[in-house]
């Protein structure tokens, strides 16, 4: 069930089951998956016996090193820093809220999470990996490592974590929480 606008029928408020527990669990899972993404091989290219490894942070760094630092910075934000902030922030805000407490600075973080959300582009990067695979298919051997599969799972967990709690519910709970 959801409360809808009487004019445009957009959803105004939706009560989602076990919202805080789901948001905390899935954001914790997202953080753990990020460790796997950066700890294990993500993409490995084999060309004439030479191996090159690449993960999202290294892709951003590659552009930075080639002198295209604004785009490198953008990619670092959209695929590494914003997802990290969203998952970390959601856990930091929702975890203590389960016990009825607002963590220090939780309101500021919640405000910035709302602003950062459109810039989280994990799923777009994943499509980019698939397009690159098709471009390199003929000239070299490309291998997906555990880091890549963790990244695909990260996309699902992040989507689940962000959809777990209604923005209005989060703020209603923050408003009555002890600090």
């Amino acid at each position, binding site marked *: 069930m959801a409360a809808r606008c009487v004019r445009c029928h957009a959803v105004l408020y939706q009560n989602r089951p076990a919202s805080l527990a789901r948001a905390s669990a899935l954001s914790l899972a997202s953080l753990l998956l990020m460790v796997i993404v950066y700890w294990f091989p993500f993409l490995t*290219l084999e060309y004439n016996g030479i191996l090159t490894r690449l993960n999202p942070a290294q892709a951003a760094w590659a552009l930075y090193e080639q002198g295209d630092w*604004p785009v490198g910075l953008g990619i670092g934000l959209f695929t590494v820093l914003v997802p990290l902030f969203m998952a970390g922030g959601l856990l930091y805000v929702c975890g203590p809220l389960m016990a009825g407490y607002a963590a220090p600075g939780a309101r500021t973080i919640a405000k910035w999470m709302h602003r950062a959300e459109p810039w989280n582009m994990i799923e*777009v990067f994943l499509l*980019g990996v698939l397009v690159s695979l098709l471009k390199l298919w003929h000239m070299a051997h490309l291998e997906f490592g555990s880091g890549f599969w963790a990244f695909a799972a990260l996309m699902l967990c992040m989507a689940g974590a962000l959809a777990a709690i209604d923005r209005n519910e989060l703020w209603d709970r923050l408003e009555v929480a002890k600090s």
Partner: protein
Amino acid sequence: MKKDCPKPSRGIEHGLAGCHSCGKVSPVSKGHCPRCGSHLHLRKPDSIRRTVAFLIAAVALYVPANLLPVMVVYEIGVTTPTTIVAGMIEFWKSGAYPIALVIFTASLLIPILKIVALTWLCAAASGKLHPSPWVLGKVYFLTELFGRWSMVDVFVVAILVGLVQVGAYTTIVPGPGVLAFASVVVMTMLAAMSFDPRLLWDRFDDLDVVSPDTKKDD
């Protein structure tokens, strides 16, 4: 339910603002949201002017984004600059039609459709075109939903540049087009965020016509 309130009461008539950050409704005279501390506005400030400014920037950048190479491939003495369109045509020629269509949609079609849609929304919200909030509200929703996918080609360039650094044989470096292209996507996203779809409803109310919503369904 809808029959009881054929013309719903609006916050703007009572000086009430919904906070852009947390959604709490408070009197706009308070200045700041009592819950999250954000500035309160009845509507997004300078909405149409900001949207138009970002749109002009996006249109201007769209030209170099498609004319300049997004990457340059060095292959044993041979230098090949590649534009977004050239990369798409290469996929099409090699028979990879689905991926050529994905790139065509994400890189060429979506930015153009976004620019057209937001221009239409701004024209309707400023009274130059008829505001039909039901249709245009959906147009706005789709504009916000699909805008980010245009970034895919920028990520492809970054991945290729990072992976293909194979000594003296083959090297790929980014071209000047990739910054222009990423800027187009960021500009259209900022334009969509600056637009306030409630302006369409304000304009619609000014027309003072009978809402078709009261006639249909129930």
